[in-house]
């Protein structure tokens, strides 16, 4: 039973007769070869013609894309096979050989082969890599119409007008071409006999089966993608199905239906269907298993010539007399409904399932709808009634029917529904918990039914209604091709209508306040009264939509997920590889159903639309949060903000000074603008800033910009208007210095300074004017002088009548003292939010206000270089105490100084190199060299907790003394001081560093070595001092390399251990009152004795000493113990000495002691020393600190102390505070 549902056409082209079609395996492209000799490349998704290839002469019948390479092949009536590149858009080469029309061409799926079938009765295989013919298959005795490779095996099937279908075995050919290794003669013989050679001795391709059954010529033949099946179509109007095994092949069945020549046929790539086309203008779909017709589509006027299937997705293309159509067989949108956190949907097997959004789990099937509608038509819609837990399903089968089914309580497999209520109708939707509406398109009627499927009410929809969807509680939305109506069921009244074209789906927001009407290319957002809120257009097909909880609509197109805000702002959220149908968005997850009706979760980044939403809703806190927590910085967002009129917010994102400047000007944030202008320092920017600042009445900034621009006239006028007489005076002097008469005159006028004017006029040799000026102001004496100079007497001059001299107006208010007060509108609530939130922005904003506090400095800055400039030019003028604003020949260096406001701080004099050192280095030594002892101490304090600097005094002064030399220069002048650098070759002021005397190497070579020698020579006091000196030298030092720094650190460690060891031993000697090891201490009190013995033991365990020195300590301790009848301890020391000792003589003694001690290894006096437990020694009390005991350490030398010493100065280094945590000594920059 064939249904005649409308065809789901996706694309149609108009052209001359299409003879060949090929789908691109990945891209949405089809190649169409035309009877008119053209090959077209279409994007069927966008509906655009990408390219045309016209090199064939006459009709092109065969066409095929290569699976992986950017190639395609075509064959035409000019007997030629052409291979093309669609990237370079040209024919790469032509394969010649066929002697008649080429009917079909196909690429092999893996080998570089092309298979062609031709009217010259041959089938040929070509290698397109070496462009050669590798096999010609003869056998058909009429035109061969079609030949195809088997998708997996080494088989070919061909169809011919000789009424036969042949299957060829080409395994021989494959062997020959894929095994180029040399073969022995025997191998060749064996192989030759293996394959049955045909009558020409050709073993490459042999006929395997000849299938006869068609009564006329066969036009097309195809293999099944997986099963051993073949389908063929012939001029006998039949489509025949064949099956084959290893050894034979036979006809299975025939599909009868075409009433004209069947021109092409193929197997559905995924489903058990056969598709065929014919000259009877129909496309027919057959059930593969039952061989019955499933569907047929008829075209009015066009005969079909060819059909092709997309290898992956559910798409087919058929070529006819007037072009090509791309279509799919069934709707792929799975019917679904969302209720709260559950999605109900129907799978491809027509099973109803649910999906839980909170648990992200899919339920097992709950129902099977196998019997709903027809076998090959999936259900269209699903409506869910939570109160009754029932679903309403519609299917387009049987010209539309619905079914009301109760869902089982728990999902226990795909059970057939027991009691279902059904009826006919195109749309069905629940409108209340016990009512549903059924729309029937054919009789244009809506029935409201109760749950027993009895009609309670009938409504006549507006004419032309095509669909009906839920329209809010008690309402329906009725959709016609041009209009959407909102209809109230209760009042039986149309509430509103809105003209929207071609609405296909309606998606309601979670709160039911808004709905999105989806058309093919439009999204229209309406409120619940069907008033349009916004609309947007997409060039690509819109597939589905869902609402975010915040009121953002996410919608999917064929290849994107996008968002739109209520105000129509939209953007791309992510791209899609496959079409999906959105059902829900939650946080960063978008839930959707794919075309196989499988629930999927996609991750998205909602930052962009959340930000925009927050912006629209003015939720600044949220914006701030988004700014802080995401990397939402980019040109697009800035442009967006600027475009939407939020320059002040955009300002927060921008780093680029130019853009910042623009934005700051736009939002009137002068402080930022000033900052940026300073950074960029371009006249154009100063110009704009001055205009803007003037408009703001911020004359302080105006003044600064004029100074930068050297607009002297404007500056004078500004001072005049702001009443700044003092600066006006200076301007006059500058003018004088510049020799600019006009400017001088003007300034004199502004100042009302008559003398100055006269002076200037005299200088300009304008004696008459000078005279008149003097005269006019009643300055007779001056006037007389001028006359005398000119050699005239008063009588010689006839002066006109004079009025009263006019004084320039005086500024009443001292405007220059402050800017005109402006209403504080600077901080938007957003900025306030930012301030409150703290963070870097706040700091930046805070600094901004300093903008022109620096201005005075700036003037001072300008003065300094200008003096130098003067001196050089030899222009004399004391008035130029500052402020030569000569605008010519300004050396570059000055300009740099102007810009670099921050760097120069001390007015006229530059910073000395010593200052650079402190700036360049975090090393205490470098600060000491610069003479900045305070900061050096501060550094040491922070790095190693230094507090007692007295021992470092000489070191500091020594470094300082080595830092500067005296270079005699001019007679009578003190010598020039120069700074000695350790970076001799460096000229970059940011990298120069002072020379530090006594580098690490020299300390190692002298002090450390001396200390060790002293140890050996038993001059412990000297050694102690040497090591202490070494520590101090190393503490304030600079290492050349990282490895040297490590060496230094090692030396510090070692020296401090030696100091500790030596101190312990010295303490013992002090107690015993003797330097010799063999002193008898029996006369001393037991406590002292005990302590002395302990100390001698501790002396041996200090780590980090060189082996020979440890040997010395062990020897001493052993002797001392043995002498004082501590035989147990003595034995321990002797053992250790034998083990690690470096001195043969000592070892010998040790062995003897050992022998003696072993006789009674007991101690006369119990001492606190356990050689088997690891411990460190307290640097203050010389008592053990066991692992795990609480202790404090010196941050510099690492020596540990008992807690009671915390806060005191380390006895080892004598400088640092015990227990103070530091960042660690720095020795390299």
């Amino acid at each position, binding site marked *: 039973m064939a249904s005649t549902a409308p065809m789901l056409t996706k694309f149609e082209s108009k052209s001359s007769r299409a003879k060949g079609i090929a789908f691109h395996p990945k891209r949405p492209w089809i190649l169409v070869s035309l009877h008119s000799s053209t090959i077209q490349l279409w994007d069927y998704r966008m509906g655009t013609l990408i390219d045309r290839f016209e090199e064939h002469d006459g009709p092109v019948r065969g066409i095929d894309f290569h699976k992986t390479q950017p190639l395609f092949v075509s064959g035409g009536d000019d007997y030629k096979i052409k291979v093309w590149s669609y990237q370079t858009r040209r024919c790469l080469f032509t394969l010649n050989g066929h002697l008649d029309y080429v009917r079909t061409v196909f690429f092999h799926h893996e080998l570089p082969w092309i298979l062609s079938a031709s009217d010259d009765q041959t089938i040929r295989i070509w290698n397109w890599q070496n462009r050669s013919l590798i096999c010609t298959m003869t056998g058909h005795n009429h035109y061969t119409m079609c030949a195809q490779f088997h998708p997996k095996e080494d088989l070919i099937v061909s169809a011919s007008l000789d009424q036969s279908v042949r299957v060829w075995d080409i395994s021989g050919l494959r062997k020959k071409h894929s095994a180029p290794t040399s073969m022995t003669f025997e191998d060749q013989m064996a192989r030759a006999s293996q394959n049955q050679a045909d009558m020409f001795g050709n073993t490459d391709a042999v006929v395997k089966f000849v299938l006869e059954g068609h009564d006329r010529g066969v036009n097309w033949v195809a293999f099944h993608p997986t099963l051993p099946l073949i389908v063929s179509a012939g001029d006998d109007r039949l489509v025949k199905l064949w099956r084959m095994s290893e050894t034979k092949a036979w006809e299975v069945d025939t599909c009868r239906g075409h009433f004209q020549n069947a021109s092409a046929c193929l197997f559905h790539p995924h489903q058990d269907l056969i598709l065929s086309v014919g000259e009877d203008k129909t496309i027919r779909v057959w059930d593969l298993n039952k061989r019955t017709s499933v569907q047929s589509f008829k075209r009015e006027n066009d005969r079909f010539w060819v059909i092709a299937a997309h290898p992956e997705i559910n798409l087919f293309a058929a070529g006819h007399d007037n072009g090509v159509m791309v279509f799919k067989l069934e709707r792929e949108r799975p019917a679904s409904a969302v209720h709260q956190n559950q999605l109900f949907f129907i799978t491809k097997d027509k099973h109803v399932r649910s999906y839980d959004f909170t648990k992200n789990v899919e339920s097992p099937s709950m129902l099977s709808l196998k019997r709903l509608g027809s076998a090959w038509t999936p259900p269209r819609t699903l409506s869910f009634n939570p109160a009754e837990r029932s679903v309403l399903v519609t299917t387009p089968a049987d010209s539309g029917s619905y079914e009301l089914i109760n869902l089982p309580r728990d999902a226990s497999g795909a059970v057939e529904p027991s009691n279902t209520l059904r009826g006919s109708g195109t749309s069905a939707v629940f409108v209340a918990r016990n009512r549903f509406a059924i729309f029937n398109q054919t009789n244009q009627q809506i029935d409201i039914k109760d749950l027993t499927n009895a009609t309670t009410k009938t409504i006549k929809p507006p004419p032309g209604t095509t669909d009906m969807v839920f329209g809010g509680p008690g309402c329906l939305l009725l959709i016609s091709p041009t209009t959407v109506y909102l209809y109230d069921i209760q009042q039986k009244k149309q509430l509103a209508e809105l003209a929207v074209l071609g609405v296909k789906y309606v998606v309601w927001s979670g709160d039911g306040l808004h709905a999105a009407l989806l058309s093919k290319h439009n999204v229209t957002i309406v409120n619940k009264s069907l008033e349009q809120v916004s609309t947007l257009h997409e060039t690509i097909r819109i597939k589905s939509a869902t609402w975010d909880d915040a009121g953002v609509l996410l919608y999917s197109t064929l290849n994107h997920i996008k968002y739109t805000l209520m105000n129509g702002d939209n953007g791309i959220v992510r791209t899609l590889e496959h079409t999906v149908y959105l059902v829900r968005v939650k946080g960063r997850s978008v839930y959707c159903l794919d075309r196989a009706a499988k629930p999927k979760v996609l991750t998205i980044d909602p930052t962009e639309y959340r930000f925009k939403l927050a912006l629209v809703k003015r939720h600044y806190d949220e914006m701030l949060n988004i700014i802080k927590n995401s990397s939402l910085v980019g040109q697009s967002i800035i442009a967006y903000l600027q475009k939407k009129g939020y320059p002040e917010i955009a300002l927060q994102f921008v780093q680029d000074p130019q853009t910042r400047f623009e934005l700051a000007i736009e939002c009137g944030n002068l402080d930022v603008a000033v900052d940026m202008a300073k950074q960029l320092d371009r006249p154009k920017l100063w110009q704009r800033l001055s205009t803007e600042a003037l408009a703001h009445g911020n004359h302080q900034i105006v003044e600064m910009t004029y100074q930068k621009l050297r607009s002297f006239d404007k500056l004078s006028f500004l001072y005049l208007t702001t009443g700044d007489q003092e600066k006006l005076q200076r301007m006059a002097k500058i003018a004088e210095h510049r020799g600019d008469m006009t400017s001088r005159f003007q300034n004199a006028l502004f100042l009302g300074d008559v003398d100055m004017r006269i002076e200037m006029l005299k200088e300009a040799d304008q004696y008459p004017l000078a005279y008149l000026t003097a005269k006019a102001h009643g300055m007779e004496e001056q006037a007389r002088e001028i006359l005398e100079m000119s050699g005239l007497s008063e009588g010689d001059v006839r002066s006109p009548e004079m009025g009263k001299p006019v004084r320039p107006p005086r500024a009443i208010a001292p405007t220059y003292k402050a800017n005109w007060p402006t209403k504080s509108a600077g901080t938007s609530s957003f900025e306030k939010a930012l301030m409150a939130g703290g963070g870097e922005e706040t700091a930046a904003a805070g600094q901004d206000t300093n903008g022109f506090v620096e201005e005075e400095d700036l003037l001072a800055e300008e003065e300094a*270089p200008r*003096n*130098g400039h*003067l*001196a*050089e*030019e*030899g*222009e*004399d003028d*004391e008035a130029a*105490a500052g402020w030569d604003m000569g605008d010519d020949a300004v050396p570059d*260096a000055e300009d740099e100084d102007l810009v670099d406001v921050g760097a120069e701080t001390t007015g*006229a*004099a*530059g910073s000395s*190199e010593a200052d650079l050192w402190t700036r360049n280095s975090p090393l205490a030594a470098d600060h000491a060299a610069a*003479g900045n*002892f*305070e900061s050096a101490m501060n550094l040491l*304090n922070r790095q190693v907790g*230094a*507090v*007692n*600097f*007295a021992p470092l*005094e000489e070191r*500091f*002064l*020594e*470094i300082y*003394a*080595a830092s500067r*030399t*005296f*270079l*005699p220069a*001019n*007679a*009578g*002048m*003190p*010598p*020039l001081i*120069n700074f*000695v*650098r350790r*970076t*001799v070759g*460096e*000229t970059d002021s940011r990298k*120069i560093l002072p*020379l530090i*005397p*006594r580098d690490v190497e*020299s300390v190692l070579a002298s002090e450390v070595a001396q200390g060790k020698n002293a140890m050996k020579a038993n001059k412990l006091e000297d050694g102690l001092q040497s090591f202490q000196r070494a520590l101090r030298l190393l503490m304030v030092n600079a290492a050349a390399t990282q490895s040297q720094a490590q060496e230094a650190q090692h030396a510090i460690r070692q020296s401090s251990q030696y100091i500790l060891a030596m101190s312990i031993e010295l303490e013992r000697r002090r107690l015993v009152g003797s330097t010799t090891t063999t002193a008898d201490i029996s006369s001393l009190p037991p406590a002292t004795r005990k302590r002395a013995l302990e100390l001698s033991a501790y002396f041996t365990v200090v780590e980090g000493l060189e082996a020979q020195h440890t040997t010395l300590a062990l020897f001493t301790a052993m002797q001392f113990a043995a002498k004082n009848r501590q035989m147990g301890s003595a034995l321990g020391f002797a053992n250790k000495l034998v083990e690690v000792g470096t001195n043969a003589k000592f070892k010998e003694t040790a062995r003897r002691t050992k022998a003696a001690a072993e006789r009674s290894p007991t101690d006369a006096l119990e001492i606190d020393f356990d050689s088997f437990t690891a411990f460190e020694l307290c640097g203050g009390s010389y008592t053990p600190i066991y692992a795990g005991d609480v202790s404090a350490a010196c941050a510099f030398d690492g020596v540990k102390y008992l807690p009671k*010493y915390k806060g*005191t*100065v380390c*006895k080892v280094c004598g400088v640092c505070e015990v227990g103070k945590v530091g960042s660690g000594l720095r020795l390299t920059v």
Partner: protein
Amino acid sequence: MDPFSPEGELLNIHTAFIQAQYPSVLSDYTTSDFSPTNRLPVQILQYRAQCALGQSDEVIASISDADARSTPDLAAVRTYASYLQKPSAGAVQEAERLAEKEGDNLSVQLLCGTILARAEKAEQALQLLAKHTGSLDAVALTVQIHLLQNRTDLALQQAKSARSFAQDALLVNLAESWVGMRQGGEQYQKAFYVFEELAQSPSSASAMSLVAQAVSELHLGRMEEAETALNAALEMEPENTTALANKLVLDAVTGRDIAEARTKLESADKEHEILADMMAKREGFHAAMAKYSPKFEP
């Protein structure tokens, strides 16, 4: 014609002066040998040489009030000598007065400029010196003042512009070397070549040149060579305070005890800058140290 130009008769004495060969300036030249117009400059150079040799008293004595009144040059010399003898506010005021009144006089520019610069009135000194008309002495002094103010950039400009009109004159080379010693890097080596050339040729050698050579070598990190040059300088003038001061620095750099050098310097000039500076630094150290109150073990 510029009397200091290579053809002029003042060239030799001037060169000797800037090479700090002061005894030669005094003994090898007599005023009467020169043309009348050049007698005054010679006289002034000799006075300045005397000052440089520490004979300011004699200079003051030999210039009468009348001479000083009639000739600003001599007035400037007298002020200069008295300032060198003992820096006083009066001398500075006198220098300021001269600078204002006789600012166009080269001697006034140089000598008063020196006084002003030493009296920490660098701005005024620079203004005064800016009035010179192509005098390399003025340029050299300007360069030094700029360097004193740590304005290497401006000093470099001065030196460069001087080179543009005076080419390879000795003073230009010297001024550039002084700047180079501030710039460092390759400039150290260039400066060294200039100083070495002066110091090593017998006709131009002086303690000052040797010291300059030693200093440049010290900056280049060649301590041994620096020491040799310094010793040579001290041999020539055992009491040269600059040499002694640099000796102290060299000792410090090489890690030797600086006490000996300090004593020597103290005996030569008790109030030498480096000594005062070191003293001040020591005090500074104590002051900074006092901010920390270390606790010692009870």
